């Protein structure tokens, strides 16, 4: 199995069909709901290999700040009246990059793959919006129990104030 950039290698001639995911080129985009995004990317420093640091003055309330640790790993910082928290931006459900999701007006972080909703305040899974629309087929079977809720929550990370900086321990 190749780890190269994902491409669909077409054997069939597909004429002038081009594969691109640019919503601006989508003639139906005006019909489709547009997610609200309140994200900001920050430049991250590493005072030690286990620590990510950013300036505390860069953190604003109501914005999810994104720190890129590696290609696969991002960390989020959320601040509001309840305080400041840091957490992994990997969805604990299936592994989506939550920095590609969005935050709604009720301060819920939406996963871009399955729409699961997480609280950036404590990392809890607040709801699975798919339950209602799929009710008809969500019947108990040997392999599926509709009463079981997924036990997943965002992985919260220790965050310390060091002078004017915030230090996040990115490795246990």
């Amino acid at each position, binding site marked *: 199995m190749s780890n190269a950039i994902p491409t669909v290698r077409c054997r069939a001639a597909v004429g002038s069909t081009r594969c691109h995911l640019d919503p601006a080129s989508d003639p139906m985009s005006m019909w489709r709901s547009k997610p609200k995004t309140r994200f900001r990317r920050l430049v991250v420093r590493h005072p030690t290999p286990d620590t990510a640091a950013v300036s505390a003055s860069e953190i604003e309330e109501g914005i999810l700040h994104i720190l890129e640790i590696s290609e696969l790993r991002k960390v989020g910082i959320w601040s509001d009246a309840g305080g400041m928290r840091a957490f992994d931006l990997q969805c604990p459900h299936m592994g989506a990059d939550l920095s590609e999701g969005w935050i709604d007006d009720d301060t819920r972080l939406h996963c871009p793959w399955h729409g699961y909703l997480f609280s950036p305040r404590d990392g809890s899974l607040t709801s699975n919006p798919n339950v209602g629309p799929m*009710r*008809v087929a969500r019947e108990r079977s040997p392999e599926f129990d509709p009463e079981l809720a997924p036990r997943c929550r965002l992985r919260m990370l220790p965050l310390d104030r060091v002078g004017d900086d915030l230090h996040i321990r990115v490795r246990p």
Partner: protein
Amino acid sequence: MKYRFSLVYDFDATVAEAVAAYLDAEHYSYLHRKYAADYEILEADEHRMRIRGSWSLGWLRAGHSNVVEYVPPARFIQYATRPHPAWLPSIHHLIAVRTDLRYFTDEARQVTISQLDVELDLPFWLWPVRKLLRRQLERLKIEKDEEDIAMLRRRRMLFGDSTLKAYLARHQFMLFKDQFREHFGGGN
């Protein structure tokens, strides 16, 4: 008049991963939200479901529903497309679409093949636009597959060969899950 065509290409994942992604109903209105903001199961039995994909513009919620039939282990047939709401002018009042999707392994090259066979039943006066319709359907399939492959690739990088484990958890809903488990659940 019937117009038939096929779209065949390599799919950069195992057959089990391709089938799991197809049956992962919860991802359609999020990862593939560009194509339908809402995804709803209207009817279901052991082998068939009627599924509606729709989106909203103000008070109007428009889309279409169709029947999806799973033929294990890796074949999906879609037909009986109906516009929603029924009074809304739609191409589905004029054209009947039947698709037959299969995933299988090319043993010689050890790659997964996606083969989509499409049959359009259209009135004679729409015959001149058949190739335009074909290109739109091909583009839709390729774009969705690209999104799925990107998801599967990330999951492989994170979880190695355990990409099916999350789908098979007791709390995780997927279409036709018992049949999927029967064919692809060995060792998970």
